[in-house]
C-alpha cells in the first residue's frame, strides 16, 4: 500500500491480515486467464484499505459478451432473457466497428466520487490508482500480447486546456508501462460535445457523437490488420467508443480489430 493510505477513505493503518484475506479472495475470483500469484500481486498493489477493497464493485462472470455489462445488476426484463449472449441495447445497435467492450467495475457510489475527484477536481495522483485498476482488468479479460497498441479516448482541445490534462492519457501511460504495449496518440476530437451529464437521452447522445473523432494514425494500407485497444473511463451508451472505432476504420482498407476497455461499466 502506498504511503498516502487508502485513496478512497484515507485510512492509513489497515488491519494487515484482514486486508490479506480480502486480497486473496479477489485473486481467486479474478485469476481466470492469468495465474493466481500474478493476480494476487495486482490486487495487492491497489492503494485501498481492507474495507474499501472488499466493497469494490467488480463486475461478475456473467456479462453481455458485447458491451461487458453485468447480468446480475440489470432490470427485470433483461434478467428474463439472460440466456442471451448480448444485452438488449447491444442487439438494437447491431454491427459496429467496435468489436466489444469490457469494464472492470460497476459505476456506483463506490467509484463515483473517486472518478470525480480525478477528472473534475484534477487530483492527478489518482492516475496511478486507475492505471492499476486497468492493468488488473486487462489481465482479467484479455490474453497477453493480444493488442498491438493502446489508444486513449481524446478530449477536445478546448476541454483539454480547461482541464489541464487528459485523464485517460495519464492512465494509458501507466497501463502501457505495466504491460509493455505502446500507446498511440493519433486520435483527435474534432467536434466539441456537451458534457455527458448535460445530454439527455440515448438518441441525442448517439447523434452528437457522430463524426466527433478523426484518426491520423498509420498509413491506410498495412499488411495485416492491427489490433487496437481503446481506453476510456466509463462506458455508458458506448457511443463515444463506437465513434472512435468508426473513425479509425474510416480510411483503412484492411480493417483493424478494435476492442475497448473501460474502468467503469
Amino acid at each position: 500500500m502506498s504511503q498516502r493510505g487508502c485513496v478512497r477513505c484515507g485510512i492509513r493503518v489497515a488491519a494487515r491480515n484482514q486486508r490479506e484475506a480480502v486480497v486473496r479472495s479477489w485473486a481467486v475470483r479474478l485469476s481466470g486467464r492469468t495465474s493466481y500469484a500474478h493476480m494476487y500481486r495486482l490486487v495487492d498493489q491497489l492503494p485501498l484499505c481492507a474495507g474499501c477493497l472488499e466493497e469494490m464493485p467488480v463486475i461478475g462472470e456473467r456479462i453481455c459478451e458485447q458491451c461487458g455489462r453485468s447480468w446480475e445488476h440489470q432490470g427485470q426484463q433483461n434478467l428474463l432473457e439472460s440466456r442471451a449472449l448480448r444485452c438488449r441495447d447491444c442487439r438494437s445497435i447491431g454491427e459496429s466497428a467496435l468489436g466489444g467492450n469490457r469494464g472492470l467495475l460497476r459505476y456506483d457510489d463506490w467509484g463515483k466520487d473517486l472518478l470525480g475527484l480525478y477528472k473534475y477536481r484534477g487530483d492527478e495522483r489518482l492516475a496511478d490508482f486507475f492505471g492499476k485498476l486497468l492493468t488488473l482488468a486487462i489481465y482479467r479479460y484479455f490474453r497477453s500480447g493480444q493488442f498491438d497498441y493502446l489508444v486513449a479516448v481524446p478530449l477536445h482541445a478546448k476541454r483539454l486546456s480547461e482541464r489541464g490534462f487528459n485523464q485517460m492519457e495519464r492512465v494509458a501511460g501507466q497501463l502501457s508501462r505495466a504491460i509493455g504495449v505502446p500507446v498511440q496518440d493519433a486520435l483527435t476530437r474534432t467536434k466539441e460535445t456537451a458534457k455527458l451529464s448535460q445530454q439527455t437521452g440515448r438518441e441525442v447522445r448517439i447523434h452528437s457523437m457522430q463524426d466527433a473523432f478523426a484518426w491520423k494514425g498509420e498509413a491506410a494500407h498495412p499488411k495485416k490488420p492491427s489490433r487496437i485497444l481503446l481506453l476510456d473511463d466509463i462506458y455508458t451508451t458506448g457511443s463515444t467508443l463506437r465513434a472512435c472505432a468508426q473513425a479509425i476504420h474510416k480510411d483503412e482498407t484492411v480493417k483493424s480489430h478494435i476492442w475497448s476497455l473501460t474502468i467503469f461499466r
Partner: protein
Amino acid sequence: MREYLLYVKVGREPIQAYVTPCFRVDQHFWQEKEGSQLYVIGRTPSLAMAFSLRERLHQYLQERQASTVNEQALAGMRQIALTGVRESNALYGHTFSDDQSGPREWFAWRERVDEQDGGSSPLSNRGDIEQVKEVLAGRALLWEEMERLLQTHGIAVPDLPQLLQRLVLSGDAQWLPGVRLQVRKSWLRHSLELECTRCGSGKEKIELTTCHTCGQGCAYCTECIGMGRSKCCTPFLCVPAKRAPSSHTGHAGRLAWSGRYSRDQEVAADRARQFVLNHWGRNVEFLIWAVCGAGKTELLFPSVVAALEQGERVLIATPRKDVVLELAPRIQRVFPEARVIAVHGSSKEKWEECDIAIATTHQVMRFYQRFFLVVLDEVDAFPYHQNPVLYRAVARAVKTGGRLLYLSATPPRYLQKRLVAKKKSLLGRSSYALYSSSHVLLPGRYHGHALPVPQICTVSGLDKLLAAGRVITPLHDMLKASLDAGRQVFVFVPRVEEVPRMLGYLQVMLPDYREGMAGVHASDPAREEKVMAFREKAVKLMVTTTILERGVTIPGSDVAVVGAQAPVFDEASLVQIAGRVGRSPDDPKGTVLFVQSYRAAAPQAAVRQITQMNQLAKQLRDRREMA
C-alpha cells in the same frame, strides 16, 4: 494560451520589473502616468516562471542601485533571465523524472519579441472597472473562481485580463501565480522551491505535472485541491477591500439580546471591546480564554457591535460546518439588522455581500483583507491546531489595521506564550494573569460554580482486561452510580475500532441498561440521529470517539474516558471533555473519570489546568467579596 511578458520600467522611481499578460495596457498606463521607458526582457507562457524571473531581476536591480540602463545592463538582465530559465529547466527535468523522453524544454522563453502583440487597445471603460473592483473587493480567488463570481453577478467583460492588469498597475489588485516557483541555490545542490500562493503549502504537498493549459512544466497543490486546482499557470488574484461598505453605517450594530452577563463576563466582554476599539494600540491579536461553559459566544457581542458601528465587516471562523449552521441563525437573531451569511462548502450565499460572515476555516482562504474584525472560534480544535496554512489564511482575511480575536477554552501553548502574560506570586509560583493588553482570562463558569475536577485512575493491563471482559471496578462503579441516579454518561475511547468493542463490553457489564446504549464515530451514517437520541435522553450511555468532545451540551451528564493515556487525548482535548460536565446552572456538579493503563502526562496536565482555573476563579470571587 496566455503569454506573460517581463519588462523593466525606467523612470523617476527606482527601476522596477513587471509581469504582464497584455503589454499594450502597460505601455498605455505608464505613458499616461509619467512617460517612463519600458524595456522588454522576454516572454514565457508560464506564469510561475515569469514571476520567478522577476524576483531574480529585483534582486539584481537592488544590488545594482542604478537609475538608468544602457544596452550593456539590459543584455546583463536578459542573461540573468536566460540563466534562470535554463536552471529551472534542468531542475524541473531532474525532479520530474517521470518522463523517459530525455532532456526537454520545460519552460519556453523568447527574448526580444515584437511588441505588437495584437491585443485590443486598452479601452476598458471606467464603469466596468469600478464594477469589477466592487465585486472582487476583499477576495483572493483563482482565475476560474473569479470568472464564475463575475458571471453570477452578471458582469460580462470582453477583455478581462486587460481590465485586471489595469487594476494591478494602479495598485488595487495583485496578480500572482497559483503556485510559486523558485530555484534555491546551495553549495551542494540547487533545488526547486515550490509554494502554493493560496494555502502556503510547501514542496511536499505540491505535485509536478505536464500541463495542457500552459504547455509548460507545471505544478499543482494537493493540499487545497478541494477548492479548485491552484497551479503554476493559474492566476491567483488578491483584491483588498479598500473602504467599508458605507450603505448603512451604524444600524447593523443594533443588538437585540435580552440575556444578562455575570459580573466577570461583563468585564471580559468589555476588555475585548476595548481591544477592538483601540486604534492606537499596537496589538492586532487578542485572546479570550474562557473555560468550558463560560458563555464564550455571548462575550463576543460587544466587540461585534463595536466593529459594526464603524461600518466594518466581521468574520467569525469556526472549524466545523455544523457549528456554522447552528451559529448563523443565532447571530442573525441577535443582530436583526445586520446581513448575516453562512459560508461553507455547499452554501448558496457564500458570494453574497454581508456585515457578518460565519465561515468554516477553509472558506476563509477565499477572503483577502476583507474584514476589520476576525474572530477565530476554538483555535485549539483540529483544523487550526499546528496548521500554519489556516493561520495564514485567517491572517490574510484581516484588513490592514484590523483586529484578530482568538476564542478558546484551551489555547495551545504557542498562543499562550505569545499572548498570555504570566505573573509570579511572592512564593515564586507562577500563574496566569487574569488580563493583559493581549488577552483576558475567564476562569469561572457563568453560573459561578467550580469546574468538576477529574479523577484519574490507573489500571494496568487495561486493554487485556477489556478484551477478556473482566470487571474494572472503578469504571463499573462510576457508570453504575451515574446511571442509577438517572444521569447520562459519555464514554470516550481513543479509536473508531474501539467503539463497538467498548459498547459490547459495557452491554455485558451493565445488563440493566443494555437498551439505552449507543456508539458513534465520525463516519457513522446514523451519527446525527444517535446524537439527537442522546440529547432527547432516549440513549443513556454514549460510547464515542473525540468527535463529541466539544459543542455538545447535555444537562446532567457524567464523563468517563477509557484509555486516557492514548496520544489522541492531549491536554486540551481532555480539558474539553471534562468541560462537558456540569454546564447547566440546575446541575453544576458531576463526575469525570479518566481511566489510563499507565501513568501519562496529559491527564495529569488536564487536572492541573482545571484546578488552576478553579483557584483563579475563587481568587476572583474572594477579591470581589472583599471589595
